[in-house]
């Protein structure tokens, strides 16, 4: 039966059909829906791990125990998991282990656009790249099979367009039962002390040779000979764009792109007049083809950065620029994403912004506080970076007249990679104030549970970590819980803690307003502007709440369809014009 599946849904389906029984990951766009779909298969144990490193380690254990395993993450997640990944490449696996990693060319929702294909080459493991959902599903099966046969982890690399595009996919009801035996003690293979690792590394070189032979012979790498004037080597989504724009060309389509099939490439090059590589982001394949002494073009025809589109491919190959089309003679206001009306993060960032306190930031919905009018975040590097950054900044500024900075971090992010940063502040006797934005969920990626929420991916009740007790056990004695809807309390606590000479932790706690709305279904109250009282001072606009706007330039108005009823705007209105009304 053919169904429309996204790349992520197809990977989940592949997990079911090809006998996966354990799956672990950490959410991250565009990879999140893989586990969110796997959870529907009761045959598969699945979990959100606190972070990608732990997810991969869980996956390693499951594979050793004989379970076919998937580990999922977004591209930058593999940076976090890189440590186990690089040495897992030495030990190899027991049951098949596929790491599904989704890159985000164009940075639709990411902080960088690193090309994770290099990780496969770096770690010397096979790299698989699907071009649509059918291939995504089938490559899960192929990946598990070669993982077992060649004793290697496998990197299945998706991109945003593969993960989030739907295409017709044949699904089957049968599920393969894996026949891998249980763990057999084998220290030379699994205990990577130098003496063992040296031998494993030699074996890896042999393994790469065998994998290259596979890359030459597998159907996943195939020539489609057509017009021989143009020959294009490509895989992933670039293949679809090329076929769209140049249906007559000849193709060497690569589903397995590391190790590269040298013979296949040499033959293909010989049979076409002009050879190209079409790939997104970096000349990963092109540079290797050039190193083989083959003349080839590609990257130089494309923009240096960003996502490919069929228009870019048409421009490069046909010199066909996209038609200009109609442009109205007015400037179109952009529509950036914003924190939702009633978002508990708003009160906190409003307070920091009013006080002009610098905030070393982190990643999550709250990063949107960087945008006007709040402009309350000063850095964002990677998950967990806020705390170490604040600590380093404050250490360096000690004794100067530079005021201390705070670190702000979401609850999911704190549990992902903020713990060790906080430990650093405590251990090295910093004085930083760290603020956890505890909205009881991983909101940015669509409300996933985490170790602080009390529920697991599979919906089981579990213990929720006590952040206060945790910080105290690190040796941080100043821990305060505040409600970010209470601006006065926030202001007092922040003033006091920033001045303190010891480290402190402020837990700004209130559940995400969208979660609350889902639970309650209705909004109990709403805010409204009493037009006769509004002085038009625009103080409420400084909150950057999308529900509040200005009517004919002199009065505020709150959109009743958008207002989620939080009391923050009421507190900033000095004229008392914003009032709550029952609905």
């Amino acid at each position, binding site marked *: 039966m*053919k169904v*429309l599946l996204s790349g992520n849904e197809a990977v989940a389906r592949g997990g079911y059909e090809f006998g996966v029984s354990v799956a672990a990951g950490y959410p991250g*766009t*565009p990879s999140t829906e893989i586990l969110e779909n796997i959870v529907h298969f009761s045959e598969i144990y699945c979990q959100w791990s606190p972070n990608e490193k732990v997810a991969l380690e869980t996956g390693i254990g499951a594979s050793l125990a004989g379970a076919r395993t998937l580990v999922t993450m977004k591209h930058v997640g593999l940076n976090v998991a890189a440590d186990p990944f690089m040495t897992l490449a030495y030990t190899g696996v027991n049951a098949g282990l596929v790491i599904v990693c989704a890159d985000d060319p164009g940075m*639709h*929702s990411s902080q960088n656009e690193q090309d994770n294909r290099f990780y496969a080459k770096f770690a010397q493991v096979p790299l698989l790249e699907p071009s*649509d959902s059918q291939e995504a599903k089938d490559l899960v099966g192929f990946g598990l099979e070669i993982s077992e046969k060649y004793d290697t982890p496998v990197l299945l690399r998706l991109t*945003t*367009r593969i993960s*989030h*595009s*739907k*295409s*017709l996919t044949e699904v089957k009801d049968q599920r393969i039962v894996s026949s891998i035996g249980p763990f057999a003690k084998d220290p030379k293979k699994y205990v990577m002390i130098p003496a063992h690792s040296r031998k494993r590394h030699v074996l890896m070189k042999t393994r790469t040779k065998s994998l290259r032979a596979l890359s030459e012979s597998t159907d996943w790498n195939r020539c489609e000979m057509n017009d021989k004037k143009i020959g294009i080597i490509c895989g992933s*989504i670039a293949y*679809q*764009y090329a*076929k*769209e724009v140049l249906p007559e060309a000849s193709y060497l389509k690569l589903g397995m792109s590391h190790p590269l099939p040298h013979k296949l490439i040499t033959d293909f090059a010989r049979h076409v007049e002009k050879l190209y590589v079409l790939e997104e982001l970096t000349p990963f394949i092109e540079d290797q083809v050039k190193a083989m002494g083959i003349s080839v073009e590609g990257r130089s025809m494309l923009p240096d950065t960003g996502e490919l*589109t*069929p*228009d870019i491919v*048409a421009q490069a190959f046909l010199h066909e620029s*996209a*038609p*200009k*089309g*109609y*442009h*109205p003679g*007015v*400037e*179109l*206001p*952009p*529509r*950036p*994403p*914003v*924190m*939702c009306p009633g978002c508990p993060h708003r009160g906190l960032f409003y307070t920091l912004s009013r006080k002009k306190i610098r905030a070393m930031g982190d990643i999550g*919905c709250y990063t*949107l506080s960087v*945008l*006007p*009018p709040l402009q309350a975040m000063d850095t964002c590097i990677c998950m967990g970076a806020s705390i170490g950054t604040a600590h380093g900044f404050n250490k360096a500024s000690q004794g100067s007249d530079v005021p201390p900075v705070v670190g702000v971090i979401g609850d999911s992010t704190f549990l992902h990679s903020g713990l060790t940063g906080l430990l650093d502040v405590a251990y090295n006797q910093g004085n930083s104030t760290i603020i956890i934005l505890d909205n009881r969920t991983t909101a*940015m*990626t*669509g409300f996933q549970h985490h170790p602080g929420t009390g529920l697991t991916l599979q919906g089981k009740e579990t213990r929720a970590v006590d952040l206060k007790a945790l910080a105290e056990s690190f040796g941080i004695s100043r821990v305060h819980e505040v409600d970010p809807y209470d601006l006065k309390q926030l202001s007092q606590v922040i003033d006091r803690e920033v001045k303190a000479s010891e480290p402190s932790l402020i837990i700004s706690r209130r559940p995400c307003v969208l979660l609350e709305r889902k639970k309650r279904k209705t909004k109990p109250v709403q805010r409204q502007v009493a037009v006769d009282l509004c002085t038009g001072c*625009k103080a409420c*606009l400084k909150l*950057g709440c*999308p529900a*509040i*706007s*200005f009517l004919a*330039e002199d009065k505020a108005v709150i959109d009743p369809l958008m207002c989620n009823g939080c009391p923050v705007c009421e507190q900033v209105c000095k004229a008392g014009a914003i009032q709550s009304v029952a609905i």
Partner: protein
Amino acid sequence: MKMKKKKDILIVGVGGQGIIVASEILADVGKEAGFDVKKSEVHGMSQRGGSVSTHVRFGKQVFSPLIRQGKVDFLLAFELLEALRWVNFLSPHGAALVNNLKINPTTVSSGSMEYPSNIAHLLKESGHTIQLIEGINLAEQAGSKRAVNIVLLGALSGFLPDIAEEMWLKVIRSRVSAKTLQANEKAFYLGRKDA
């Protein structure tokens, strides 16, 4: 089944307007009608009230999930400013079906930029067929404010004569809850009549 012509449809609007559901229904309808189908959207930041766009393509064999600029057959816009932002993706023969609704982006509500005042007029100046749809009114008439997306699909269905009405209803029935089915069916008919 006789092979029908390809259709490239771009759905645009604001996060939270029900665009993803609309595109899911549309893609399913294409599949039911015997086409190869591809659909592409971007999740993530766009959920937080930002611009959202989804490409849906039907054809004998579809390669790219993204439609090329200037090749869109139908632009289904849930909001006026978003319609204007994307109208240049239409092919010369393309038509836009536009929900007559204004949602201020924060760049406007904060007072830093202006919302273009005469969008309906500007859209018509593009030379394309522009159909304005009173989505909210029709949805309310159908009995559910949230059925605007189904009203708009109803309107689009009027432009796709190759696809039988029953096919749309079948997919809508499979996608909406029993409780809202009646309102959604009515919304579909009202939109279809309006187009």
